[in-house]
């Protein structure tokens, strides 16, 4: 067996066997699933702190305002005087009291709260009140609801590139997620390469090994071995993520409540009849937001079909591996140049800076994927793995893609050569604080 494959094998097996690998493999997808599902679940859960007691002197709004995800109206004290309600409010589980006083023309209502209710709650109440009064005003002026509905318009832009419909928002999400993965993977595993190099150096096993293999073989063996560990981990994430996604969406589908309920809610709102049953409202709300979530998942399916997957997956693999090779070689050189952890900082900064920079500008790139900044960042090799990946789902002119890929491949060779020169000298340098000037000299040592 060739020596480099022996090294790859050792690097791979020792890492995959570690407990931390198992933990990260399992926790990773759970974490991502959490990022996706938890906000959705939170949004669909009614917050008990936002229970609002309605005290209505006009009596016109009792039971009319509809509870939603931000607020839940309690009409139990609708007819009780505000002074009395305020007295018992302090000890109740309610967050606020909405006081509608009797007046000729309602301009203002008061919301008494135990703590700041937040902008969501305030605007939800304002919107509902305005809608109700607008409708009432329309009725008073003999304007039929159906005429108003007929007047309203809801025009959407359909993106068509070439002959195909695109989805800018989904492209953004896809660009964001895939380039973020590249960032995460490159940083996580390049740093592992660096730590591995430092381990060998500080352990002093390195001199034994490089008397059997060339330093370059050792470096590349480590880079490839750790890269394979990363790929394995990524694959586990994808499979587990897929499983969780499948499970999550089927769970939500199964939980979706009988469509009849939803229509009832709509009918009730349309007819303007007060809703008396509190519980029924809550259930309906939950059903409504779940069906919205299901709709989102359904849209994801539409997007999955509309994307140029060959380009995106091909590009992802290319920039994923390319970015890793480029940065892990540089990190290997950093690891070889230093003796101890604390010395890594000065050399790590210039290496990590392009990665952090590309993540920082990624927001700008995905909102405007064809701007000069986006184009330049996606062509310059140190930022291209992340920047180009963010752009790819939107479609990139072939010459830009070709140039970016060519430059990346060329700089991988350059970086590996450079790192190899530094590495072979650095490995045997002990007890000396290395300067950039010195690193430069190492490159030219025989």
């Amino acid at each position, binding site marked *: *067996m060739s*020596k480099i494959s*022996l*090294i790859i094998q*050792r690097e791979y097996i*020792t890492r995959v066997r570690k407990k931390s690998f198992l933990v990260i493999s399992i926790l990773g997808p759970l974490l991502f699933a959490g990022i996706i599902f938890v906000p959705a679940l939170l949004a669909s859960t009614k917050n008990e702190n936002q229970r609002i007691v309605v005290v209505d002197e006009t009596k016109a709004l009792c039971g009319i305002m509809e509870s939603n995800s931000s607020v839940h109206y309690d009409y139990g004290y609708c007819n009780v005087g505000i002074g009395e309600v305020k007295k018992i409010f302090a000890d109740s589980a309610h967050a606020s009291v909405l006081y509608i006083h009797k007046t000729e023309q309602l301009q203002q209502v008061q919301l008494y709260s135990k703590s700041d209710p937040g902008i969501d709650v305030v605007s939800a109440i304002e919107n509902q009140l305005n809608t109700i009064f607008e409708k009432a005003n329309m009725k008073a002026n003999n304007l039929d609801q159906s005429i108003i509905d007929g007047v309203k318009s809801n025009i959407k832009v359909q993106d068509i590139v070439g002959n195909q419909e695109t989805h800018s928002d989904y492209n953004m999400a896809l660009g964001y997620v895939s380039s973020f993965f590249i960032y995460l993977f490159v940083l996580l595993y390049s740093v592992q390469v660096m730590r591995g190099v430092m*381990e*060998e150096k500080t*352990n*002093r*096993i390195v*001199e*034994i*090994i*490089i*008397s*059997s*293999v*060339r330093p370059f073989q050792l470096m590349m063996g480590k880079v490839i071995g750790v890269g394979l560990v990363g790929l394995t981990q990524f694959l586990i994430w994808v499979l587990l993520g897929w499983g969780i996604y499948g499970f999550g969406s089927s769970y939500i589908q199964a939980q979706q409540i009988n469509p009849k309920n939803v229509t009832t809610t709509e009918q009730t709102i349309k007819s303007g009849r007060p809703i008396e049953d509190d519980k029924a409202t809550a259930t309906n709300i939950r059903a409504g937001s779940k069906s919205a979530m299901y709709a989102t998942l359904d849209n994801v399916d539409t997007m999955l079909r509309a994307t140029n997957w060959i380009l995106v997956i091909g590009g992802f693999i290319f920039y994923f591996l390319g970015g890793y090779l480029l940065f892990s070689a540089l990190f290997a050189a950093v690891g070889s140049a230093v003796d101890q952890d604390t010395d890594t900082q000065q050399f790590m900064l210039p290496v990590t800076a392009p990665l952090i920079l590309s993540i920082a500008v990624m927001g700008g790139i995905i909102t405007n994927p064809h701007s000069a900044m986006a184009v330049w960042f996606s062509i310059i090799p140190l930022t291209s793995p992340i920047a180009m990946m963010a752009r790819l789902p939107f479609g990139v002119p072939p010459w830009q893609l070709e140039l970016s890929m060519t430059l990346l491949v060329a700089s991988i060779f350059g970086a590996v050569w450079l790192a190899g020169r530094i590495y072979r000298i650095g490995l*045997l340098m*002990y007890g000396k604080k290395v300067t950039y000037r*010195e690193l430069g*000299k190492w490159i030219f040592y*025989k």
Partner: protein
Amino acid sequence: MDNIITAKNIVKRYSQHVALNDVSFTVPTGTIYGLLGPNGAGKTSMIRIINQITAPDSGEVLFNNEKLAPYHAMQIGYLPEERGLYKKMKVGEQAVYLARLKGMEKADAIAKLKEWFIKFDIKTWWDKKVEDLSKGMQQKVQFIVTVLHQPKLLILDEPFSGFDPINVEIIRNELLRMKNEGTTIILSTHNMSSVEELCDNLTLINQSKVVLEGNVNELRHRFKLHVWEVKFQGNEDSVKNALTGKYELLELFQENNLTVGKIKIPEGLNSNDLLRTLLPACTVINFSEILPSMSEVFISVVTSTNPTKKA
């Protein structure tokens, strides 16, 4: 006799200093060769060049009369002075890995390792993690890994450091056994008694240059101070009187009911002359020449080659 290593005019420069300045020497096959010198003299640089860890700026090294090439690394076993192992790896697994890097087949490596583990009485260590072994235990494992692939040339940098006297003896015997089986050993050490005991030839490097090269016994003769040791029975004073004026009596002491004297013979006289002077004064039991220890040779050469005066 064939030479396994021929170093010709090796020069190695680092940015601030010259580590090796025109160093040449030859290591005869099947011998134990001492590579000596004070700290920072350039020994490690030379060893790294033979191991092809670094390359010389000029000059060349021949291995069995061939220009040193990467495949020669398989025929060399190297134990560096600063040595370590992967701490988290198990002993057996790690030894197999290092052996395979030296070109051994897995099954062969395991079989040979088991033999060595039995020989060194460390069978139970196979599945232990390296970090659970003491430093001396780790040294043993490192030694085994160095010699496992039966290299033609062994390069050992301070092989005895970290070992207790019992293990030093074990390693010494192994080295002599391997020498008898035809292995050439380059030994770099500051332990002069082991040089005297083990080495056939040596090179002394000081300040990047070879200052002494040759056979250990010849060198000790070359640096001898013409001091002889006499063990005798008889009156001390009559011996002193007989020597006065001609010979320098360096020491005189009692040992096992005998008197022992160390006497320096001046130029122009020889040991027979000394004997003739002594015979009338006492009964000579033992008469032998005292050769300088390698330590004394080392110190005298290094101090004489260090420039003390500056122009």
